[in-house]
């Protein structure tokens, strides 16, 4: 075997430790030396932004934190961006989660931080309903009466004692549903809440879920969609509040490029060796 064919053969069998090393560097270095690549906005993100932007001051939005801590880098920036947008527009927010593992702690942190930034008052400007088991029952039950499912909020206050919840009895009193999710609950928000109660909704989902959610977008069941970290970065850009997702775009760009480069190398090796 001559040296050229040996090289092409090796291209097909690069040790995966080198691949891991390159991916690690591609993730790490752009965080230290940001590239600041220009970020475009996809129509689906812009539609979601516009739907929230067009809500009147004092409207009520239900914001869900339906994700596990494992997907925090993708989903948490969406929650931050959405909540900042809502509070900036003086929209009242009801938050809840249908996920038992960790989402409650994440939600508490995000809501408290952003409420502090915008000087919002608990009970009047926002309410945190917390977590309740059984997302199908929760979603359906809130359609008739929220206090049947959540008699008390996350901090053990009776719902009837909270000024915001005195006005909001069920989905009829909610103007928009903003779901941030990393799992199939988003399908149920569409099929149970949007379809049965007619509540307009948009969602922020992880990149692997986005291809499925495009179908809800095209049918008009969702007014807008944020797909993965890029969707979060786009929403940060639209709300002029650039944060973690925007910073994450550089590593993501380099990693995608690196994966493509490895695929091309592997194929060059494959075709040349075949000849």
């Amino acid at each position: 075997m001559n040296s050229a064919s040996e090289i092409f053969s090796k291209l097909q069998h690069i040790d995966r430790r080198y691949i891991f090393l390159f991916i690690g560097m591609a993730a790490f270095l752009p965080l230290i030396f940001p590239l600041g690549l220009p970020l475009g906005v996809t129509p689906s993100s812009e539609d979601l932004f516009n739907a929230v932007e067009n809500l009147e001051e004092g409207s009520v939005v239900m914001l869900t934190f339906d994700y596990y801590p494992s997907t925090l880098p993708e989903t948490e920036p969406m929650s931050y961006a959405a909540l900042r947008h809502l509070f900036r527009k003086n929209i009242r927010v009801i938050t809840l989660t249908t996920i038992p593992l960790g989402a409650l702690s994440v939600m508490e942190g995000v809501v408290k931080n952003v409420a502090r930034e915008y000087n919002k008052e608990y009970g009047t400007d926002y309410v945190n309903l917390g977590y309740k088991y059984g997302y199908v029952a929760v979603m359906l039950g809130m359609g008739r009466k929220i206090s049947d499912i959540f008699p008390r909020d996350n901090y053990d206050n009776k719902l009837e004692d909270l000024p915001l919840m005195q006005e909001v009895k069920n989905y009829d009193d909610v103007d928009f549903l903003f779901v941030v999710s990393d799992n199939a609950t988003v399908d149920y928000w569409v099929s149970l809440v949007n379809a049965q109660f007619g509540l307009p909704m948009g969602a922020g989902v992880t990149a692997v879920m986005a291809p499925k959610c495009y179908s809800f977008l095209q049918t008009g069941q969702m007014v807008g969609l944020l797909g993965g970290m890029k969707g979060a970065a786009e929403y940060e850009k639209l709300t002029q509040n650039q944060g973690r997702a925007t910073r994450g775009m550089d590593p993501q760009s380099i990693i995608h490029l690196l994966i493509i480069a490895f695929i091309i190398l592997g194929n060059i090796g494959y075709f040349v060796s075949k000849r």
Partner: protein
Amino acid sequence: MRTQLPVAIAFLSGFIMVIAFFVPESNLENFSQNLLTFVTIVGGFTLLLGIVSILRANIQVVKKRGKEWGFKLLLILTLLIMSISSFIWGTHEGTVYHWMFQNMQAPMMSTMFSLLAFFIASAAYRAFRARTKEATILLITSVIVMLGRIPLGQFLWSRLPEYTDWIMAYPNLAVQRGIIIGAALGAAAMSLRIILGIERTYMGRG
């Protein structure tokens, strides 16, 4: 009786929920709403049952010094520490539970998930070979989507995101819709089988 009673409960609950959806009658709606509240309460107990079950299974392995008993012990200890601290001091900001969640559990879970990037890169390099016509189409499509979903792709060619969106909105959706409709029909059929008592595997037997 052990079989008939759960089947009868499943039939009545399912039947009432279906009727309540189609017939807007207040008594029926009240009843169905109570059923939904009941589900959330019973669900709370199933979470408890899950914790008891995981403790029992792992304590047995630790007692017998079974396979990987050290990890099981770690699981039991962390479960107890998180639970007890949350009962004593609560789960709000500033508590021990919150600190452990923010600084231990969340980073560990994110780390596990982020390892996917390394394995996906390695797997993509090995699997994406243009061996056949179909594989070539898949390869080209994936490269377009991967580039179109990052700022660098747009930087290289401004129209690339348009092509990515087209792929997502048409070829992708043709497949996705088929899957969604198929899964929904399957779920409807399964629900009907449970309501009618044909499907009994939820009771732990066929």
